[in-house]
């Protein structure tokens, strides 16, 4: 059975008055979308769940700043992308610190090599290696190209929806996507040479 889409205008008004039941309705309606966007960026269930919760806490506190220029879903997707990028920066800082403090194992004095935390539940086992190469290359793209590729290819959003989220027109999005693909080909070509 398909779930009916709630009245977002009504929910917005209710949440701005502090109604947690309205927030729950919004959560149930958009949780999967937010979770998958976050998962695309962090590629780890626990981290994506953390971001999902952060996003809805932020939505609850700052819904009064939502002007209605775009759809509520678009606004929340933007928050999700920003939260995901902040989370990645935070994790990188933490990793750098951990690397400095625990580069050597206390017991043996040997250098520790941290394993990758790539654990995207939407990637089937036989595609895991390929997806990992792809995501590593995506991470090296310039910010806007990366976001365009993530929304169109990984999230499989429509051009209109992705353009609205990135606050650009569809023509600019097409051009970003073109450059993203060209750069990914170059990056993957280098990876292939190193294999």
């Amino acid at each position, binding site marked *: 059975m398909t779930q009916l889409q709630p009245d977002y205008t009504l929910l917005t008004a209710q949440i701005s008055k502090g109604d947690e039941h309205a927030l729950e309705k919004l959560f149930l309606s958009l949780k999967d979308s937010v979770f998958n966007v976050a998962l695309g960026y962090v590629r780890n269930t626990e981290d994506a769940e953390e971001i999902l*919760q952060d996003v*809805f806490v932020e939505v609850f506190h700052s819904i009064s700043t939502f002007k209605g220029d775009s759809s509520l879903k678009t606004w929340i997707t933007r928050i999700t992308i920003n939260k995901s990028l902040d989370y990645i920066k935070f994790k990188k800082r933490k990793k750098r610190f951990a690397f400095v403090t625990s580069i050597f194992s206390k017991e043996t004095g040997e250098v520790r090599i941290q394993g990758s935390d790539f654990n995207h539940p939407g990637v089937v086992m036989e595609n895991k290696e390929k997806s990992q190469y792809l995501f590593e290359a995506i991470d090296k793209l310039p910010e806007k190209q990366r976001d365009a590729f993530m929304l169109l*290819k990984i999230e499989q959003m429509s051009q209109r929806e992705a353009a609205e989220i990135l606050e650009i027109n569809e023509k600019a999005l097409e051009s970003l996507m073109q450059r993203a693909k060209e750069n990914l080909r170059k990056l993957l070509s280098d990876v292939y040479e190193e294999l």
Partner: protein
Amino acid sequence: MKPVKEIWIEEILNSAENIQRVDASERLFAGIQSRLHSKVRQIEMVPARTVWLAAASIALLFALNFAALTYSAQQKQTASHSTALTENSFDIYSNS
């Protein structure tokens, strides 16, 4: 025929299309509620009296600093004035 490298790159690029969508657990909302309440409690834990006390302390600190600076400036001015008076009265640096 496409070279092996091109086929490999295509496969990697197309692997994005095989990523399945994942459902988020409904139970995660409990975590959101707990975060909302813990934040509200944190705000409630700072009573207005403490806020006023902190503001008054800061104001007092500023006032004391200002008074100390003014006093020190006045002292310097008095000292330089009395030195000038002494120099003029006794003409200590003249050769005669």
